[in-house]
C-alpha cells in the first residue's frame, strides 16, 4: 500500500528544491525578473529590515535564487478591510471552516446566506490566500473569484510574472513547515507573525521552469489521487470479501459435504447425551429446555446433513465473576500470572484463574456487546465475559467463527447501557455442521483469509 499523502509531501519538497525539474537554456535568467520587480512598499521595507532567524536553507540548483516572500509579493502590505454592512449580497464570504486541511475548498458561501460579524478582508481573483492561524493546517489556496474573508486569511499577489501556484508549494513544503511551527506564537490559537512571513526564504527558479514544475506536479498528483482511490476501493473489497467468505462458510457453501462426515443430528444427540451425563454428575447446571425451532424462524437453507439448533442447545453459557479493577495489572508479574478477559477482550493480568481450556468468550455489556474473543489455557473471565462451553468434541475454533458471524450485537437491549442477556443469546439460531466438516470450514476460512490478508 502506498502512503499517498506522505508521497505528495515529498513531491512538493522535490518541486521546491529543483529535483523535479531541469535546466533549459531558453529560460530567462531569474535575476532579470528580480531586477525588474516594482518598488517595495514602505511597510514591507520596514519588516524586511529586521529579519528573524531561520534554519539553515537547503541546497538549490545554482541557477535558482533564494529570495524573501516580501520582496516578490505583497505579503505584509496593509489589507483592505470592509464592515459587514458594506458587503454586497452575493459576495463570496470565505471562512476558515470552508477550507479543508491542505487547501481544498469545501464550499463557497455567499454573503446573505451566511450572516457575519466583524470586519472582513477584501481579496481579488488570482491572489494567494494564506491562513496565518494554525499554519500547520496548510490552508493555502488561490482565489478564483473576488471576495471577502476572515482577517485570519492573508491575501497577497506575487509580482514580476512569478507563478502563484509555484509559490503556494513554497509555503507548504517541509522546510517551511518546520520553521513556521517553531516560530508560531500562542498555544490555543497558534499564529505566524507577519515579519516572519515577509522574510520567509523562497527558492526561485526561472519563470518557465516554475511553470514546468507546476505542470509536472499536477500530472503526478493526478496519478497519486487515482492510486489513492483504487487503494481505498481495494481495501473496501478486502473487507467485503472477508465477510462473504465467512458467510459462505456458515451456510455450508465453502466446503463439500462428504458422506463419511455423518450427520449433524448424530453430533447433536452426542452433545445432549454428554450434557445429560454431566448434569447427573452435577458438573454442569440443569437448564430449562429451549423452545422448538419453527419453520418461520429459519433464516436460510443449509446442507441436508446439517441441523439448525439454538445456541443454548449445543453450548452452555455462563458469565465469569467480577474482579476489582485494582486487582488487574497491565503486565504479567509474579503475582499476576493469568490473563484476565473482560467484555471486550484482554483487560490485563490477575492473580487467579477461573477457567482452564479453550473457550470462545462473548462480551455481554456495552456498545460492543456480542463481540467474540478466544481464550486458551488458564485464564480469568470477568462477569462481562460469557464463557461458552462446548461438548462432544465440538470444534472450538468453529464455534468462535460461527458465533462471531452471527453478529450477536443485534440482539442487544436498546437501553442507555446496551447489554446481552445470556438467555437471549441462548435463543439465537445457529447452523450445526458435522464434526469433520466443522474442522474443514475453519481450515478453509483461515487459508482464504490468510491469502487475501496481504
Amino acid at each position, binding site marked *: 500500500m502506498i502512503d499517498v499523502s506522505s508521497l505528495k509531501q515529498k513531491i512538493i519538497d522535490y518541486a521546491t528544491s529543483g*529535483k523535479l525539474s531541469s535546466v533549459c537554456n531558453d529560460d530567462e535568467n531569474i535575476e532579470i525578473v528580480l531586477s525588474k520587480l516594482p518598488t517595495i512598499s514602505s511597510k514591507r521595507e520596514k519588516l524586511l529590515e529586521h529579519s528573524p532567524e531561520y534554519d539553515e536553507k537547503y541546497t538549490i540548483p545554482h541557477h535558482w535564487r533564494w529570495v524573501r516572500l516580501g520582496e516578490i509579493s505583497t505579503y505584509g502590505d496593509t489589507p483592505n478591510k470592509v464592515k459587514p454592512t458594506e458587503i454586497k449580497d452575493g459576495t463570496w464570504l470565505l471562512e476558515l471552516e470552508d477550507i479543508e486541511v491542505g487547501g481544498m475548498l469545501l464550499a463557497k458561501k455567499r454573503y446573505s446566506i451566511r450572516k457575519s460579524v466583524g470586519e472582513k478582508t477584501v481579496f481579488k481573483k488570482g491572489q494567494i490566500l494564506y491562513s496565518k492561524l494554525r499554519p500547520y493546517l496548510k490552508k493555502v489556496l488561490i482565489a478564483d473569484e473576488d471576495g471577502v474573508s476572515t482577517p485570519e486569511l492573508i491575501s497577497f499577489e506575487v509580482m514580476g510574472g512569478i507563478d502563484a501556484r509555484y509559490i503556494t508549494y513554497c509555503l507548504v513544503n517541509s522546510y517551511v513547515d518546520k520553521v513556521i511551527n517553531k516560530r508560531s506564537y500562542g498555544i490555543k490559537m497558534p499564529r505566524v507573525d507577519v515579519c516572519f512571513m515577509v522574510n520567509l526564504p523562497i527558492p526561485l527558479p526561472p519563470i518557465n521552469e516554475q511553470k514546468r514544475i507546476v505542470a509536472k506536479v499536477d*500530472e503526478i498528483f493526478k496519478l497519486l489521487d*487515482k*492510486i489513492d482511490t483504487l487503494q481505498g*476501493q481495494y481495501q473496501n473489497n*478486502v473487507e*467485503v*470479501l472477508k465477510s462473504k467468505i465467512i458467510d459462505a462458510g456458515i451456510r455450508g457453501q465453502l466446503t463439500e459435504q462428504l458422506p463419511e462426515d455423518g450427520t449433524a443430528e448424530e453430533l447433536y444427540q452426542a452433545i445432549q447425551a454428554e450434557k445429560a451425563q454431566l448434569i447427573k454428575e452435577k458438573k454442569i447446571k440443569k437448564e430449562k429446555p429451549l423452545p422448538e425451532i419453527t419453520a*418461520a424462524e429459519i433464516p436460510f437453507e443449509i446442507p441436508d446433513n446439517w441441523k439448525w439448533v439454538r445456541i443454548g442447545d449445543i453450548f452452555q453459557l455462563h458469565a465469569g465473576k467480577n474482579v476489582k479493577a485494582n486487582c488487574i495489572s497491565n503486565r504479567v508479574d509474579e503475582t499476576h500470572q493469568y490473563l484476565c478477559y473482560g467484555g471486550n477482550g484482554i483487560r490485563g493480568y490477575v492473580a487467579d484463574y477461573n477457567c482452564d481450556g479453550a473457550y470462545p468468550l462473548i462480551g455481554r455489556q456495552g456498545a460492543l456487546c456480542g463481540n467474540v474473543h478466544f481464550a486458551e489455557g488458564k485464564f480469568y473471565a470477568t462477569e462481562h465475559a460469557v464463557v461458552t462451553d462446548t461438548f462432544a468434541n465440538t470444534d472450538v475454533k468453529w464455534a468462535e467463527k460461527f458465533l462471531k458471524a452471527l453478529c450477536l450485537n443485534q440482539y442487544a437491549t436498546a437501553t442507555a447501557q446496551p447489554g446481552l442477556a445470556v438467555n437471549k443469546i441462548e435463543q439465537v439460531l445457529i447452523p450445526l455442521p458435522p464434526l469433520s466438516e466443522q474442522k474443514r470450514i475453519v481450515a478453509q476460512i483461515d487459508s482464504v483469509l490468510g491469502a487475501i490478508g496481504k
Partner: protein
Amino acid sequence: MSNQKSEAALIGKVKNIANVMASAGVGFTDYITQLTYILFLKMDEEKEEAGLDSTIPAGCKWQDIVNLSGTDLVEKYEEILSTLSKEEGLIGTIFTNATNKISRPVMLQEVFKMVDSENWYMMEGDLKGAIYERILEENGQDRKSGAGQYFTPRALIQAIVEVVDPKINETVADPCCGTGGFLLAAYAHMKSQSKELEKLKFLKNNALSGADVTPLVVTLASMNLYLHDIGVNKSPIVLQDSLLDTSDRLYQVIMTNPPFGTRPQGSVEVNSIRTEFIRTSDNQVNFLQHIMSIVKTGGRVGVVLPDSVLTDQGATAKVREKLLKDYNLHTILRLPTGIFYANGVKTNVLFFDKGEPTKDIWVYDYRTGIKHTMATKKMTRAHLDDFVKCYCSGHIEDRKATYSEDNPNGRWRCFSEEEVKQADTLDFKWIDLEEKDQRTVQEVLKDMEEEAQGITTAVDKLKKLLGSVEI
C-alpha cells in the same frame, strides 16, 4: 408581521427576566408559574377597567398590590396566593396549591413591573395564546427542571389529533394533560367543524377534560386554556392522580402522552385502589390500563408509549393480551429518537378503538433512518404528512401499504391477523437501510484484480514521470 414582532418582543422580555431569576436561584418552571399568577391578576384588572366583571375577591386585586414594594410586596403577594388557592372554579384551579417562589422583593418587583407594562387582556386571543405556548415550549426544553415531561412536541400532537379526528359533539379527555397541548389542539380541531351555537357551547364547557398530578402543571394548563378562551368560568383541568381515579367516567376520545419513568416513591399503590388492574409498577403500563378503562365502547384512543410497553414480558404482556382481545389496536406509529426532551427515548403512538378485538395491525415506521434533534433538526408537522395521508382517517378501508416485496423499505406496512398472533411482542420492524453488497465472491475477486491492476499501471506511469527521482 407586527404580530411576530410583538410576540418576539414580549417573549424576549419574559426571557430576560428569566435569566435574572435563574441567577437568583429561581428555576424557569417556578418563574413561569409565578408569572402566570401575576398575569392573571393583571388581566382581571384590565377586564374591570374595560367594564367587565372581575372574578377576583376584594383585597386580592391588582390595585391592592401593584404599588407595594419591599417586604410589603412579598407579604401581600403570599397572602393573595393563599387566599385565591382556596377559591372555587377557575381561580381555584389556576391558583392550585399556589406558593411564592420569588422571595427577593426586588426580583418580585421586576416581574410585576414587566406585567404592568403591557395590556394583556385586549391582546388578540391568538397572540396571547401563542406567546404563552412559546414560553411553555421554552420551559419544556429546559432539561434541568425536567419540565420536558410536561411538553409533547406540538407537531406530534397535531398529527395525532388529525388522525384520531375528534368530532364536535364528542367528549375528549387527557388523563395526564401536562400543559394541555392535546386538549388545545382538539379544541381547535373541533371548533372548525360547526357554527351551531349549541354545539360550540358544549365544546367550550363540557367536551374537554384534563387532569394532572402536579399542581404547578395544573396551573400552567389552566392558564394555557384560559388564554385560548377555553374554560373561562371553570377550568376543565383538575388536580388528580388519574391512576387512582375511580369515578367511572367514560369518554369518547382519549389522546395523551403519559409521563415516562416510575411512580414517585411513597405513592399509593395503584393496584390497591384499582383492583381490576393487572399488578405492575410500570407507570406507563398502568396508564395504559387506566386509558383502556375510561374509553367508551366505540370510542377512540391515541396514546404515546415507550418501546418497553410493546416488548416487556410478564405483567406488561398480560396487559397487551387484554388490549388485543377487547380493543382493536389498528395502527402503530413508530417514532424516532430526538423529538422529546429526553434523548434516546424510543416511543410509539398506539391507536385503538374499544369494542372489537384486534385483527390486522398497520405499522408506520417513522424511526428507522430518521434523524431529528430538538435544536437543529426539529420534527415538524410536515414530516408526518405521509403518515397522516396513509392513515386514511375516517376511511381506513382505503389504506394501502407502501411496503411490498419490491419495496422492502416501504414505511407503511400491514401485519395480518396471523402475523400478529405469531408475534410475541408488538415491536414490528422490518426496514433494513444497510445496502447489502450483492456481488458473488468471484465478482469481488475480479473487482479486486482490476483495482490491483489499475494501481500497478498507475505506479508504473508514476515511476516514468519521476524518472530518476527516488520515492
